[in-house]
């Protein structure tokens, strides 16, 4: 099985994606993550202003069969939380890389992005877990 892993972003081992645009970054869950979780029914997001370190739990998702944490791929302060996915959690399954972004943040240390995987590495990471 293969999952969508767009080239334009970086990935964490814990199945989050992140895109850096100037001083801001946007993150969300990957196609692999939403597929593993199955139908997502609830999303709990942080509030703007909260700060987190790389690897901290920043949000939670609940599906019909599991509850999972969303981790920060990079350290930073939350500038915006996507209320659209709080209202319609199913968007995370439908459009994980577009409409269903989780939060925007101001990265504390942009160099951290180098510690993340590119699309190919992440695709291999998913394939290795699928057996």
């Amino acid at each position, binding site marked *: 099985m293969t999952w969508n892993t767009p080239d334009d972003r970086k990935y964490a081992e814990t199945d989050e994606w992140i895109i850096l645009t100037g001083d801001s970054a946007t993150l969300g869950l990957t196609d692999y993550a939403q597929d593993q979780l199955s139908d997502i029914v*609830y999303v709990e997001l942080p509030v703007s202003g909260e700060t987190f370190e790389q690897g901290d739990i920043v949000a*939670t998702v*609940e599906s019909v*069969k*599991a*509850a999972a*944490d969303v981790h920060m791929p990079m350290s930073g302060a939350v500038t915006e939380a996507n209320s659209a996915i709080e209202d319609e959690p199913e968007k995370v399954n439908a459009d994980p890389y577009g409409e269903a972004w989780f939060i925007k943040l101001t990265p504390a240390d942009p160099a951290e992005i180098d510690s993340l995987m590119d699309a190919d590495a992440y695709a291999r990471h998913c394939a290795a877990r699928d057996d």
Partner: protein
Amino acid sequence: MLAACDVERLEDFFDLIPEQHRFPALDLPEPLSELEVLRELQELAESNAEASHHPCFLGAGAYHHYVPALVNHMLLRGEFMTAYTPYQPEVSQGTLQTMFEYQSMICALTGMEVANASHYDGATSTAEAVIMALNQFRGRRAKIILSATLHPQYRQVVRTYTQGMGLTIVGDDDSAADLDDIIAQLDDQTALLILQYPNFLGELEDMRGLQNAVHDVGALLCVVANPIALGMLKPPGEYGADIVVGEGQPLGIPMSYGGPYLGFFATREKYVRKLAGRLVGETVDANGKRGYVLTLTPREQHIRRDKATSNICTNQGLMATAAAIYLSVLGKQGLRKVAELCYHKAHYAADCIDVLPGFSVRRERAFFHEFALRCPGPVAEINTALFDDYGLIGGYDLGQDYAHLENHMLLAVTEMATREDIDCLVEALGEIT
């Protein structure tokens, strides 16, 4: 079967146990016949003086109420008694519907939007309310305010449950503190303020405006309520409570020397995902027929694991069923009647005792069916005399929990006390002193 297991004798299965431990001497008495066992147990049971033979004026969290015959008649049916874990909804519709109806009745009683399928008892429900509030604030607020007039044992259980969580629990350091004192302690670190209704002294504290004070600092309000009192008093939901919990024992469950009891728990819809315990929901099946299931199960520990707000994944199924039957049998009018009987009998008793020399009923606030009585001497001595000389079970010694209430007895009067019982108590108190 032994052959199928490739074994010659049954004893061969126990070869793994060292010989000297295989048949230890247990030194038990000789077996008795059913008749002999019954005699022995009856003799043991008769060493108790129970409320059915002794007018009981002791309350303090567990109350002597009438259990209509219909409750046990239905509760002890095999279908109700044995139904337990409804994880397979397709074979558990009966118990799921019963729990759904119980939940609905608790909501109606408390004036709240959603109730779970119950906890062990009022004390643990209160502790779960604290944990729910902490989770609602995701650990950003760590202060809990407990009213000094919240049941002393409930406050102890809250502290036991939350030890090691780094919480600041205040409000009851001064046992004489009142509502204004604890409102003054509200701040932006407060997660929850807990009040009892009626309070442990039987009194009704003025909750008007309380929700504003609590919500102004962004905290939550929890009210611990007596379910019989809710038959005639304004429900805590109408006072803006965010969580309502309490002890459901008065609803068709005998006092039973401390348990099994029933913790009810109700809250607002917006907090439902932080709610602990089992939750039954109504839905439709594949054919469009109404059915019931356990719902919002990712809240629970078997899915959320260490991130669950509580390790509770059970409920007091049998006790909740008893409460549901009790409430159905009485209905709104019946429950109100029970509440009114308790209220009026307690006030009759208070008025009669108040005129006795040396006794004084605490009348700082209106009370429901319990009141604090200042006595001319130690409560323990009075209770001994009441029992030994008159066969009456006296009230709770408040001096053990409230320094300023030394020699005060907490007297409860329910619908079970006849006028003769009350008059006997009054006469006894008059003669003892």
